[in-house]
């Protein structure tokens, strides 16, 4: 592992957002990942997304599992509480944290090993519960931190650095999430910030579980010729099937849109996602169509990317649990303890 400064986006450092904060205020510790690791680009996109959304950094909770990907929450939002838990179990920690205090913004970072092998069950159940969080799956087809073993997202035929070909079918997080009823599903590429940043912003605004599968090449163990998760392969096969802009509630409505159909989907908080260049037979609010369309793209050898599906009005975990509006952590003890008198009359039932 080398220790170099992470790549910086060439944007004016002094520029301030509505809160008067610069991008630097959204950064974290120095990255210790390999130079060129896709994960670092995702970190930079996360910094940009939060800065653009004017989120107070300390009102974010950032959680992760274990892996190179799991380390990255240390590299953004230095003022936020971070939680680097155990391998594959970030969804449970996030679920408990979110249950206790939904007033914070939750972002979880995971890897393909973390999410699709050891933590597959937890990912599935967080999707089912529609836990309100942005879930970024930094997908490189290998276990980076344990030095390059195949992960469950490795494609059939993709070869390891040593030349061994993977023969087991991959688990595709996008199809998985769609079939489990996920309410926000996207795929992107760490090398395409223009696509990734709006997706992250929409994912943060989404009330519910937002899965963003980001192809994030591992330069050290999976960036070679025969890999299907290399920069080159991804650039060649990554096909944006839809372009989405995120228009925040109070944002300018002045963005220019090219010709062609524009489809707007209103989000829970009043923001909007504008879908452009949508293929004719694609409807990002129709789960069955999206699934079929993506299968077709896959059969054509493409890696379909973009904000692929959203269902903004599905009930999230708190709605299903029927918890009170106020975060549980803010409830005064007096409203939680029934008191001596109530216990005394309850005791009559036990006589």
């Amino acid at each position, binding site marked *: 592992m080398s220790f170099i400064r992470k790549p910086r986006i060439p944007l004016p450092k002094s520029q301030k957002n509505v809160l008067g904060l610069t991008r630097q205020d959204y950064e974290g510790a120095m990255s210790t990942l390999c130079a060129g690791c896709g994960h670092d680009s995702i970190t930079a996109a996360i910094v940009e997304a939060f800065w653009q959304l004017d989120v107070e950094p300390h009102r974010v909770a950032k959680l992760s599992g274990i892996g190179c990907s799991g380390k990255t929450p240390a590299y953004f939002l230095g003022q936020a509480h971070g939680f680097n838990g155990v391998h594959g179990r970030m969804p449970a920690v996030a679920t408990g944290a979110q249950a*206790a205090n939904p007033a914070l913004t939750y972002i979880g970072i995971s890897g393909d090993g973390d999410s699709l092998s050891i933590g597959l069950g937890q990912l599935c159940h967080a999707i089912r519960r529609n836990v309100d969080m942005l879930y970024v799956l930094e997908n490189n087809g290998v276990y980076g931190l344990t030095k390059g073993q195949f992960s469950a997202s490795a494609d059939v035929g993709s070869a390891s650095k040593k030349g061994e070909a993977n023969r087991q079918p991959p688990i595709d997080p996008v199809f998985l999430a769609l079939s489990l009823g996920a309410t926000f599903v996207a795929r992107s590429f760490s090398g395409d910030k223009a696509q990734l940043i709006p997706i992250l912003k929409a994912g943060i605004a989404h009330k519910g579980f937002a899965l963003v599968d980001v192809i994030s090449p591992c330069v050290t163990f999976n960036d070679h010729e025969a890999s299907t998760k290399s920069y080159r392969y991804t650039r060649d096969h990554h096909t944006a099937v839809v372009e989405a802009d995120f228009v925040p509630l109070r944002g300018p409505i002045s963005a220019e849109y090219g010709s062609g159909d524009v489809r707007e989907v209103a989000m829970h908080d009043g923001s909007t996602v504008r879908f452009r260049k949508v293929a004719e037979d694609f409807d990002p609010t129709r789960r069955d169509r999206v699934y079929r369309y993506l299968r077709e793209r896959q059969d054509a050898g493409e890696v379909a990317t973009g904000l692929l599906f959203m269902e903004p009005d599905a009930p999230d975990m708190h709605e299903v649990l029927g918890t009170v509006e106020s975060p549980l952590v803010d409830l005064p003890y007096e409203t939680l303890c029934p008191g001596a008198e109530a216990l005394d009359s309850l005791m009559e039932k036990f006589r």
Partner: protein
Amino acid sequence: MSDPVNDFALKIATVNGTGSASANGLLMQSIFRMGVPVSGKNLFPSNIQGLPTWYEIRVSGAGHTSRAEAPDLMVVLNPATQTRDVAEVRAGGWVLHDSSWQLRRDAQRDDVTYLGIPFAELCTERFEGSRARVLLRNIAYLGALAALLDVEVPVLEELITQTYGRKKKLLDSNFEALRLGYDRARDAFHCPLPIRLRRMSANDDAVLIDGNTAAALGCVYAGATVAAWYPITPSTSLVDAFSAFAGQFRKDPDTGRLRVAILQAEDELAAAGMVIGAGWNGARSFTATSGPGISLMGEFIGLAYYAEIPSVFFDIQRTGPSTGMPTRTQQGDLLAVAYASHGDTRHIALFPADPHECFHFAVAAFDLAERYQTPVFVVSDLDIGMNDWVVPRLRWDDAYRPDRGKVLSAAELEAGARFARYLDIDGDGIPHRTLPGVHPRGGYFTRGSGHDSHARYTEDSVAYREVVDRIARKIDGAATAVPEPELVVDDALGAERPATVGVVTIGGCRGAVVEARERLRDHGVVADVLRIRGFPFHPSVRSFLDRYERVFVVEQNRDAQLRTLLVVECGVDPARLEPLLFYGGMPLSWGPVVKGILAALGMADPDAASQPTGAAPAPSPGSTPRLEIARGGA
């Protein structure tokens, strides 16, 4: 036999799923309402319908709560087990059986009295519908027992009214069935039997409650707002009770929404993760599980210990290892809990002996978890958790306020110097903590990987040791904060005549050991009892061990886990601690404890004469003392 009024035991042998449990509960409750101390043990199979099940009721005017020795009266309603059931009755006892069918030859003894009533036939004659007949047969035997034991019928009728009061037809048929059994017994036998009840007023300030319900109430009163769990016997009823209480006490009156989140997790790993996530965020959160769940939670428990996250774990122990016997009791998780997870870990644990302590220890667990920023275990078991116990009425002090520990407020963070999450500022090993979202200066990175006193990633030996050594000091400090051991000594004797032996025990063994202590006095053996209630051990534990030449350790597992903990934690010579182990899965009775201690002291077996003399040897799966460690040490 001494005066058997208010001092006897009966056992009801039925088939699982036939509705007998509620009838047995009614009997327990009527005895309770007659003011007589009573305890009940539901010995049920891991099965929904069809397997044999037993219910033991011990009536003890003196207030003894341990499992009864051989029953005085057996109610034989399950043909499949009649032979062993009849064999268990003490010589001179009674067998009430359903004479709709013949008792097998091998279920016939000449030293017991048979009381036959054709319950099934009577109910078939009287009632319609096969399910109703089965259910009402239970009420009919209840009626017969009322006649035989002098249960006050109005008390029973009141209870039945409270149970079925809303449905007139059901109520009428229940009353009829009760009468049926009652009249039949009065007509056929000399009622009451010498073993019988007489009204007392011992329960004026008592309640009849199970440990899981009491623990759930403790969680409500402690202000717990997040519960995460995965169903497993015998812990499920704790969360069921918590949900019910939440519906009762935690509903916003205006919106009907809940001031609590109850998450049924996908497994115990997830349940532990959720509890830790919620605790990290500042909620009082807990899970309830049993041994298999504790095993699965291991990795997360270590994380909570090392990253210092308050979390409460109820371990309602059952018989292990592995799936073991899910509906039998044991104290087999003591070591697993004390040092749960890999690496150097050591956990605060509380050991209630009855539902009253379950309630109070649940509250204490949340305070300790937040004060020490660590996982805290409440180690109960199936016997305590699922059986109804007569305990002092639960009371609440409205002056109680949760101990949230050292949590820095926004104002403190604003005013203070740089926050360092894992620095020992106060010299007690307990660092300061911040909650997410409170203040920009409070942010830090929680991790299970190596970290220094400022929560920064480290692989440096010195920085690593600074943190883990401090955590060790912190947990050491909890020894005086956990509930002190209970000491049962003879005040009258005082220091004048020191006891012959010391007995250390834990949890649900309490009743058996305290009663054994009284019986030992009849043999000239004076025993002082110390019951462990918390871990790490209070300093008084060590001094107790040092005080006696011979110390017995009574517990319910095969491998003397409490003894191991005492040896390791108190540094005493293992030869000085003599194990008395009962691990067959049944609640403990006093007899085997007395026998074990007398045998170790080279004294005669007192019970030889009063053993059951049935055709077949009495099965006593719970009473197999294992005494294999050399006793010559003292």
